[in-house]
């Protein structure tokens, strides 16, 4: 991102910061998530995009790597569970009418980090499979497998908790 384009950088931040926050949150952040968001953008503004990569593919990889670096130091399944339960939906812009089903939160916390990354990129960044594959640096087939496995587990958790659909 060019140094002499402060407005372009600001616009990029305004557009992407909310989804970066959600992706990092699902990687296990809570109280320090804003620090991590800031760290992502500092890295992006300071770095050069590798010539062989598109900007967004590289950008999402920076997000995932930031989350992985932090996660290695202090990731626990219980920690993520606690964080997911600390979320206050009322403070959100798209506040859902009801909080997430507890069984789904537990299932989310139980997913492996790779599967959670996949879910985050799919649902928060709305990335197509090919771009998720680039960000995770895996083949598209692996992304399909991960996404299938993740959604299957989440669906099963809702099923077993007696979740009722609202058609």
């Amino acid at each position, binding site marked *: 991102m060019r140094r002499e384009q402060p407005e372009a950088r600001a616009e990029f931040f*305004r557009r992407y910061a909310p989804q970066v926050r959600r992706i990092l949150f699902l990687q296990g952040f809570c109280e320090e998530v804003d620090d991590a968001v800031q760290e992502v953008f500092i890295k992006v503004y300071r770095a050069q995009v590798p010539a062989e990569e598109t900007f967004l593919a590289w950008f999402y990889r920076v997000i995932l790597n930031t989350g992985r670096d932090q996660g290695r130091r202090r990731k626990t399944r219980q920690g993520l569970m606690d964080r997911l339960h600390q979320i206050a939906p009322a403070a959100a812009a798209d506040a859902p009418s009801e909080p997430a089903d507890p069984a789904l939160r537990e299932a989310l916390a139980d997913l492996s980090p790779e599967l959670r990354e996949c879910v985050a990129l799919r649902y928060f960044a709305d990335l197509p499979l090919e771009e998720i594959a680039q960000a995770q640096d895996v083949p598209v087939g692996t992304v399909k497998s991960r996404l299938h496995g993740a959604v*299957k587990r989440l669906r099963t958790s809702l099923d077993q908790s007696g979740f009722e659909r609202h058609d």
Partner: protein
Amino acid sequence: MTDHPRADDATLGVFDDDRLLALALGLDDDPELIAAAAADDMLRRRLETMRGEVADVAAQVHAAVPAPHEGYADLADPRWAGLREFFAAESPRPGRARGRASRRLRVLAPVAAVIIALVVGLTVLERQGGGTASLRSHQAATEASAPAALGGGAHGALSFADQVDEYALVVLARARAARGAVQRFTVVRVLKGTAPAVLRLRIADGAVRVGGLHLLLLRPLAGATGAASSVGGLSTTKGSLDAYGVGKPVAYSYHGEPALARKLPPGTDPRTFTLP
């Protein structure tokens, strides 16, 4: 949640839930399943149910981690202080900055030469027994008008510039919360050397206050004999920097080497802060 329409065993065997899920998620096109669902009412209803369940999962994931409030990305918020340097209206390129510094140097150098000549001349006069009063008044005037010269002789301590010269890495950074024996700092501006976005310093004296802008002196250079020679030695420079309004030195270690944090006065603009 699942109350799938019942289907015969043959259909279930070929088109099991995994296959329906893959189609519902858009992972596979599966024209065979689409064609079969068009011809089989039971299968079509199973597929619709699966699509509904996938939509439920999506809604629940969004509910589990909702989007932040609308003002979240407001750059005026103090939480983004570490990013402000990137949004400044004027982001001078290094070349331009060097050019300006060079022009300033050309203007200021003759003035500095005159001042030095005056000081030398007055000193000679004083040694010769005269002009004591005028020397004192000149010294007072010089100190008042040139704060950048501070530290040079204060209690024999190193000057700010000398101290900075003893470190390979000098940054402005905001303190984050300490965790255990480590405190992290978000780098706001690199004044000298190359730094990562976040620095993790091991606490020696005690943690500094969260959010404060600090001058960090890191990676002492080999052969440094003054401030950087040891954490204990850092305290000898205390007096030399006080005149800048910075806080007392707080010792840390960075990658096993002594490091120093000094809080900058409130209101210091990291974009315009310059090393003396």
